[in-house]
């Protein structure tokens, strides 16, 4: 009981923080300590912002001071220059930082990798130079003095500024932590984790990966802007140093040392880094050197941070709790299969034709197999159909509607979902969480998922869970739902990849060597499962080497050789074709059909 409560608090401490926000200002009276706690809380908010990117999206920002400083300058300048009430200016500052975050997201996320670091670093330096040189507005390095902004009604009833300032900052920290925690235990966070661990899988399962990454940077920018807005009453003076590298570095350190991918990590980090400068006062000149050493040591020796020492504390909840609420309505189990027409599909890589003029069709509800020797262009063909690679020429039509040129997630949302030749799963997530990735294709992210509250959110999650359970049942994974994907035996991992695709409610399923590496018994199980899928109405296009399984399973076979179509027809026709036999066995006089 105590253990499970502790477990819950470590993973999802939002409500605890809310409680502390209400209690701490009641007992903390000394201005020195209250000021220190304010600083710790602001650092923690900044840490939550960085953690969204570093912990959940897996990207580094070297210039989070850009958003932090922007928040401080916007709120402070509005109060000083425009006479706007400071506490009303803070939300504006948050909106401004969110807007800049969206732009940075758009600029960096199409490339990914280190580009977020480069973009934020450049932005912070740009803002610093502007703040230092736009003398009329900012008084340059001298800075703008912002006097403490009192709230008259609270002063009137005798609450001193220190007290309600502390309360507001702590309340903001609790709110931010709660929102991040709820996002991470819902469909949005699941999608972010999927993007981080297996972006191609997320995209193929219908997640709009680019949009969600940009949203993550936007939210992160907004939260950092909030931190900046809240620090102003503590520091009094807006100076260009707000945009300095040391603030960006501290923000990273708070997360790395506290523990990334946890809710409490940034809070622990914030407390440490509010206290450390006090301790380092005797060696103040070398404070930043010591910070740098700490960062290096933490990355080298303790990549999980302090919270990491307590084990994996990713905010998540047991899947069972998602069923709380209205009973899930299972979908009828019948699927309207789609028709696929491929015409003259072609793709060359630097002049080398990988796929040339390939045409075939799959009627609704059919199983069509693509076979051919290694290097025949089967996987490339599948990549072209699913939108993973852009075709040079040709047409791909889904129920007569052209889909060539759409992104993979758009194609997935139209009902054509694929699996991958190499097992591609989110290895840190468990089976049901993996399968849930596919379900946003059927039950898209709604406003409730972003606000993290409301009946619509609970109903959406319940429907997603029902879909996931159906997909797991079809692939015989129901008993394994809580097992970690990385710990599954290979055969179960292959079935899990099909289950992720099934959870996306495909009307046509593209399978890339689902039986590769399976034992004959496992392959037979898989074939049986695929027949069940087809019986529900789903069309299947399958690539595999196992000619025996394919000829038993498929209604039509398309044989590829050196990127061109050698034959297309029923398995009996195709395997009797002399051209096919010679491609497989070399020219052979005696024809033995399977």
């Amino acid at each position: 009981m105590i253990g499970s409560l502790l477990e819950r608090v470590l993973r999802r401490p939002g409500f605890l923080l809310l409680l502390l926000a209400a209690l701490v200002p009641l007992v903390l009276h000394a201005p020195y300590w209250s000021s220190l706690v304010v600083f710790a809380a602001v650092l923690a908010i900044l840490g939550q912002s960085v953690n969204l990117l570093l912990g959940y999206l897996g990207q580094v920002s070297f210039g989070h001071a850009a958003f932090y400083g922007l928040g401080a300058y916007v709120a402070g300048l509005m109060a000083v220059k425009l006479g706007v009430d400071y506490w009303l200016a803070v939300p504006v500052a948050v909106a401004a930082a969110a807007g800049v975050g969206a732009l940075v997201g758009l600029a960096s996320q199409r490339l990914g990798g280190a580009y977020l670091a480069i973009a934020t670093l450049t932005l912070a330096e740009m803002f610093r130079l502007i703040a230092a040189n736009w003398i009329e507005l900012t008084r340059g390095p001298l800075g703008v003095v912002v006097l403490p902004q009192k709230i008259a009604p609270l002063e009137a009833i005798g609450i001193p500024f220190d007290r309600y300032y502390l309360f507001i900052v702590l309340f903001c920290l609790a709110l931010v932590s709660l929102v991040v925690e709820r996002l991470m235990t819902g469909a949005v966070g699941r999608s972010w984790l999927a993007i981080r661990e297996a972006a191609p899988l997320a995209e193929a399962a219908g997640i709009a990966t680019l949009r969600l990454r940009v949203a993550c940077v936007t939210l992160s920018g907004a939260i950092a802007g909030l931190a900046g807005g809240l620090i102003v009453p503590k520091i009094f003076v807006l100076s260009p140093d707000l945009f300095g590298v040391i603030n960006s570095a501290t923000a990273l350190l708070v997360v790395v040392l506290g523990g990334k991918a946890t809710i409490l990590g940034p809070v622990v980090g914030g407390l440490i880094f509010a206290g450390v400068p006090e301790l380092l006062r005797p060696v103040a000149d070398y404070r930043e050197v010591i910070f740098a050493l700490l960062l290096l040591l933490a990355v080298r020796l303790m990549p999980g941070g302090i919270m990491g020492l307590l084990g994996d504390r990713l905010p998540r909840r047991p899947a069972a709790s998602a069923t709380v609420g209205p009973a899930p309505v299972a979908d009828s189990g019948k699927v309207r299969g789609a028709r696929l027409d491929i015409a003259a599909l072609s793709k060359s890589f630097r002049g080398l034709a990988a796929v040339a003029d390939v045409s075939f069709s799959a009627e609704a509800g059919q199983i069509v197999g693509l076979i051919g020797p290694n290097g025949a262009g089967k996987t490339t063909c599948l990549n072209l159909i699913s939108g993973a690679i852009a075709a040079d020429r040709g047409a791909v039509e889904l129920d007569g509607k052209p889909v060539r040129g759409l992104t993979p997630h758009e194609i997935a949302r139209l009902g054509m979902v694929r699996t991958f030749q190499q097992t591609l799963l989110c290895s840190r997530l468990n089976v049901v969480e993996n399968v849930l990735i596919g379900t946003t294709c059927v039950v898209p992210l709604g406003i409730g998922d972003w606000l993290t509250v409301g009946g619509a959110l609970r109903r959406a999650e319940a429907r997603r869970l029902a879909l996931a359970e159906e997909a797991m049942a079809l692939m015989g994974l129901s008993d394994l739902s809580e097992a970690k994907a990385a710990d599954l035996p290979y055969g179960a991992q292959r079935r899990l990849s099909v289950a992720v695709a099934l959870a996306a409610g495909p009307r046509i399923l593209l399978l890339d060597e689902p039986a590769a590496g399976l034992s004959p018994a496992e392959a037979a199980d898989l074939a049986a499962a695929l027949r069940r899928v087809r019986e529900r109405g789903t069309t299947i296009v399958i690539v595999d080497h196992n000619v025996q399984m394919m000829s038993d399973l498929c209604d039509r076979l398309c044989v590829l050789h050196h990127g061109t179509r050698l034959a297309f027809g029923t398995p009996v026709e195709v395997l009797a074709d002399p051209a096919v036999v010679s491609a497989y066995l070399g020219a052979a006089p005696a024809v033995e059909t399977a």
Partner: protein
Amino acid sequence: MADLLVQQAVNGISTGMIYALVALGLTLIFGVMHVINFAHGEVFMMGAFVTVVAGQGLLGLPYPLAVLLAVAAMAIAGWVIDLAAVRPLLNRAEGQTDVLLSTFAVSLLLADTVLASHGPAPAFAPGWEGSLTIGSLTIAAQRVLVVAVGVGLVVLLEMVLRRTDFGRHLRAVAQDRFAARAVGIDVERVGSATFVAASACAGLAGALVAPVTMFSPGMGHQVIIMAFVVVVAGGMGSVTGAVVCGVALGVFESLASVFIPQSMASVTVFALLLVLLLVRPQGLFGQRR
């Protein structure tokens, strides 16, 4: 006015060559190891710092010896950075992110150590005295040296990459680390050598620039952002792109500073980078994927 512009453009070429040399190392490390060495700008700063210190006071070395010392010291620094902050992290699941963080830490460590011990005041290193006069143009001899050494280094690098066994190994690792290891290439050694070469290159750039502009502890931070601008515009991993964009950036900045303050010229460059990322993320020379 025209004279001034031509003079500024010529000066810009040598500034741009410095950007190119720093960007070259950055892009080389990225091309081979697929990581960003954030500490690269501070290696440049340390190169200038060693030159200043070696040329003054107790050591009082003549400039060419000070340059050699700086290059040698930075080559060793590169080897240490690889060993301490890059190689141990590369094989982690999130190696690239961790290397970004660890090299960021190294960069802060170097910059703040110099800042805390030397103070923020700029310092000067005496270089190659004298100047060249062509018509109304006056070019400092040191600037000519920068361009000459820069061009020579780029040619040498191309030769090494194309003609030597080491260059072939390096290109093999850049293309496919796994396959390179499978055919018996010592991938760790190639990585180490890449870091040494890139850091020596940055150290040389720092040693060359110290007599042209003043040394200051903040110069590494400034140059790394410029180098990022160069590699992003030139296409990450491209040698030609780095040189062309580096020189172009130097000339642009130099010409712009005729009309607007230096800091605003930098702001313009940074804003252009962000716009470039928005409208043409693959860089000026990159292919659309």
